[in-house]
């Protein structure tokens, strides 16, 4: 029953804009979040009072207790309807997880080759651009590469999903419309309930459009997945909006971080230049190094620096202080993933950018930007593979810089980056 969306604003005028503004600013400036994280780690009892987990040990402990700290905190932000990320463990969750794992398994066979091929095609198309012409890294590069790399998720139905039930399969504008549609739905997951009414409504409108789209191509998806129909809509909708936009946004954030580290960028480009064009795709060592860089860049700019969890019944959690922090039933708690990723107790020289760091017995912490424990993102390996290919492509192109002279190079849409205009030097 679709009745929750369309809720009026119960906050005094101006307050929501203020909260949302602070939230967006903090998301765009992970350095500020890291600074707050330092304090929360230093005085964990304060974090406990505020219902926040900041130390790596505390974050891990909370994320491995999905029954006590529930993912249902995401449910309110799933404007396209319920999906795995907002569900509690149960029969539906298990069935949907199996379906998702099956769908993701097809990527194992196609990645990274499919991503490499897509990147090579876009590199070829961008190469002729001179230094004076800029392009949008998101809309002209990452968005399409991720789309092509994830093509097998919907199999033969992908083009129909992107074009809609009645649209022409050869109309790239319809595909673009689809990719924007899912971006806004995903954006709501990040923006959360603090988002302004406009952002929430836009997500709801696009979620409606996505639901109608999937309903229109249900048979195609059913045939592609060779499954009976009762779970198709929920899983297809969820898979559509969560897989693509989150990967694209992570890629944009990684490139933003890389451009802010000219020495790292230069060293990587030097290595790519030494290997040459076919070499960069064939050298496993280089690929591994770029993958490490992607992970390290994502550590500095994770797409979900903070996570929320519901507390269904009264409990406690270990903050790292002398006493555990209590969590009243029906409340919420915040997980400072970004603080955990920089916890010096767990990560040696955590403030240094060091892709080749030896993580030792904390190897699992390296992937914490994708969550932790049983609810960790099941597609994280594939996402990193795709982003690795995308980054290799950027390294063999002429050197990039944020475009100048056309207003702001990076345009934000709330906490998300909507445009990142870059040009060759």
């Amino acid at each position: 029953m679709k009745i929750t969306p369309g809720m009026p604003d119960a906050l005094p005028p101006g307050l929501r804009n203020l909260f949302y503004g602070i939230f967006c600013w903090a998301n765009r400036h992970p350095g500020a979040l890291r600074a707050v994280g330092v304090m929360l780690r230093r005085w964990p009892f304060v974090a406990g009072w505020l219902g926040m987990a900041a130390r790596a040990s505390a974050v891990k402990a909370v994320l491995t207790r999905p029954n006590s700290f529930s993912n249902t905190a995401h449910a309110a932000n799933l404007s396209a309807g319920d999906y795995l990320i907002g569900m509690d463990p149960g029969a539906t969750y298990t069935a949907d997880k199996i379906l998702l794992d099956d769908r993701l398994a097809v990527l194992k066979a196609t990645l990274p080759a499919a991503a490499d091929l897509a990147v090579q095609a876009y590199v070829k198309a961008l190469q002729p651009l001179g230094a004076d012409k800029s392009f949008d890294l998101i809309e002209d590069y990452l968005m399409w590469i991720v789309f092509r790399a994830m093509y097998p998720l919907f199999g033969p139905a992908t083009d129909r999903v992107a074009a809609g039930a009645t649209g022409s399969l050869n109309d790239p504008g319809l595909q673009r419309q689809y990719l924007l549609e899912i971006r806004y739905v995903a954006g709501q997951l990040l923006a959360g309930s603090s988002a302004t009414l406009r952002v929430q409504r836009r997500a709801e409108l696009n979620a409606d459009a996505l639901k109608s789209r999937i309903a229109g191509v249900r048979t195609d998806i059913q045939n592609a997945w060779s499954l009976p129909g009762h779970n198709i809509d929920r899983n297809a909708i969820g898979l559509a909006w969560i897989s693509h936009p989150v990967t694209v946004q992570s890629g944009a954030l990684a490139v933003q971080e890389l451009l802010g580290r000219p020495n790292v960028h230069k060293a990587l480009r030097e290595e790519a230049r030494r290997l040459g064009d076919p070499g960069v795709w064939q050298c496993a060592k280089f690929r591994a190094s770029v993958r490490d860089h992607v992970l390290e860049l994502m550590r500095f700019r994770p797409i979900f620096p903070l996570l929320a969890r519901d507390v269904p019944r009264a409990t406690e959690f270990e903050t790292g202080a002398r006493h555990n922090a209590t969590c009243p039933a029906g409340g919420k708690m915040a997980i400072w993933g970004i603080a955990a990723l920089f916890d010096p107790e767990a990560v040696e020289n955590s403030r240094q950018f060091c892709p080749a760091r030896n993580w030792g017995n904390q190897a699992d912490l390296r992937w914490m930007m994708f969550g932790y424990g049983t609810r960790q993102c099941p597609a994280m390996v594939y996402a990193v593979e795709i982003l690795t290919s995308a980054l290799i492509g950027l390294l063999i192109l002429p050197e990039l810089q944020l475009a100048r002279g056309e207003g702001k190079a990076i345009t934000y849409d709330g906490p998300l980056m909507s445009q990142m205009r870059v040009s060759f030097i």
Partner: protein
Amino acid sequence: MLEMVRQQMICIVVPGWDGTTDLSESGSVCTGLDALLKDVAVVQFASIALLPARADAKDPRPSLMLELAIEEGIAPYDIVYRLVYHPSGAMWSLYSSFWPGGGPPLQSARNDQLQGKLMEGLTIAEGGFIGARDRTARQIEKEQDLLQWTRDQARAMKAAKLYGDDRAAFALALAQRAFKNPRFDWALDPAPRSYWREKGASIGAKIGYVLALFVLWLAAVWLIGAVPRGLLGVYTWLFGAPYSGVQAVVDAVSKVSGWVLGVSIRSLFALLGLGVLAVFFLLALPAVSKSWRRWLKSVGRELDRPTETWSSWSTYWVGWIVGVPTVLAVVACALVFIFCPGTIVDAYHALTAKFLGWQIIAFIILAIVALICVFGVLSRIDQQLAAAGNWFFHPYEDDVPRAQQVDTSIDHCEGLVVRETAHMFSLTDIRSPNGWSAFWIRASLRIVTLFGRVFFTEGRLGDAPGIHFGHWHIIEKGRRYLFCSNYDGSFGGYLDDFINGATIGTTLAWRWTTLKRRGSAAIGQPAVEEPRSFPPTRFIVFRGVKCELKFKSYARDSMLPHVFRFDARKETVDGINLATSLRDALFGERNDSNDDQIMRAIES
């Protein structure tokens, strides 16, 4: 805050309509639009009309106007995007005639061009009012279902005579049945309410909100001055005096901050003082003095008098000679107090240097006595005149020069929606100079919208009930003025509600308009043969719509028929409010108030 209201009511005016698209009710375009709007499910009302071109327009073809009343929070771009890019292509079917060659071959390119064209012609309301707010169309439908179900259940229970006269037991049994029905799981949550209808509903909360903003403003202004001062102090303490330029800048910033702080605080006191004066003269004095009350009422009556009489004429001119200078003097005093308080202090010192305290007090008492005497004499004259004869109050001008004729197309449209939510389009011209008039219209409409948003939160604008979405637009670069309204009841009754219930707001909204000669938009549509003017006003807000026949005839002449209509609510404002209150009562705690509400809902 106001933009959120304004952007719920959109008009898209696209000029150059060539009339080749079939807009008949049963045609594919209208049925497609209907299906689209139902599917999108966030448009509560929509209608289409043809706006005739201005007499001096270069292109004599009419404009196609689409009115949309949508749910709260949706940006105009987003709703247009959703409609245009809908796979049904219904919007393209409507607007395709604007591309005589058929438009681009690719659907996405067509959509892009159409989106651009519609955004060019889109205006959000300059002002508007929403009656039953905070509800989605889906919610209204569900709550109506609940209301119907409850009435059916109540009828069955009464027939079974299970509860006799025990009202509480009856309500409890109904609530239990509703709770057990999984169809109504959604109703377990109380009906959503926005801030001004919930936490901000009380006067205390509204005052608190304004005060909080004011305090924040003061704090910000103070910080702007204090922070550089503090930093400079610390710097001086640590390293000695800085460059003289730095000191000068900090002094200037500090001085400006102090000045703004002083002006802000004095403005608050001035407002409070004006408020006290208003309360004293308009509320307290009428309560204690019968003659003042009568006099005040008589002034109001004369200024609002629809016809011109010697009494209203003399009141009007006395108002100009006495009232306006007095108000200006008070405002000038307030401004002097705000910006040059030293002048008042100097004047006070000069006064106290010249006169002793008892002399000043005696002078004030004498002035008050003199004022009372003057008003007493005026009041006596007023009564004597009333007793002397009617000639003083007799109208000396004709009210409406001709009998009102309603165009048949308007009659037809009204007939189509006779059992549904009624609808009107009114297109007028903005008085010359357009910029000046448009400025005042905008200012007035913002005030109306603000009051509607903050104070009139329960479905009535002033005393006017039954308005679903009423909105005003300034279109064609400030040349014309469009009013669209979706309301309950008949046109005559609706305007009566405005005339008697929201007099000032309505006069303010229309007084800068006129009706110029224009042709008809299409065959069978009304034209304006004779130019008309909005009824004259007194002191901007008086009279105007009180000239009932003139106003109604003016409104009638300005009306245009709709060629398409979509109504997702299909219920009156009262009906919507009733169903929502039933939901809250049925699923809320059991108490007398909720029991009453349930009984009221099932018996009305």
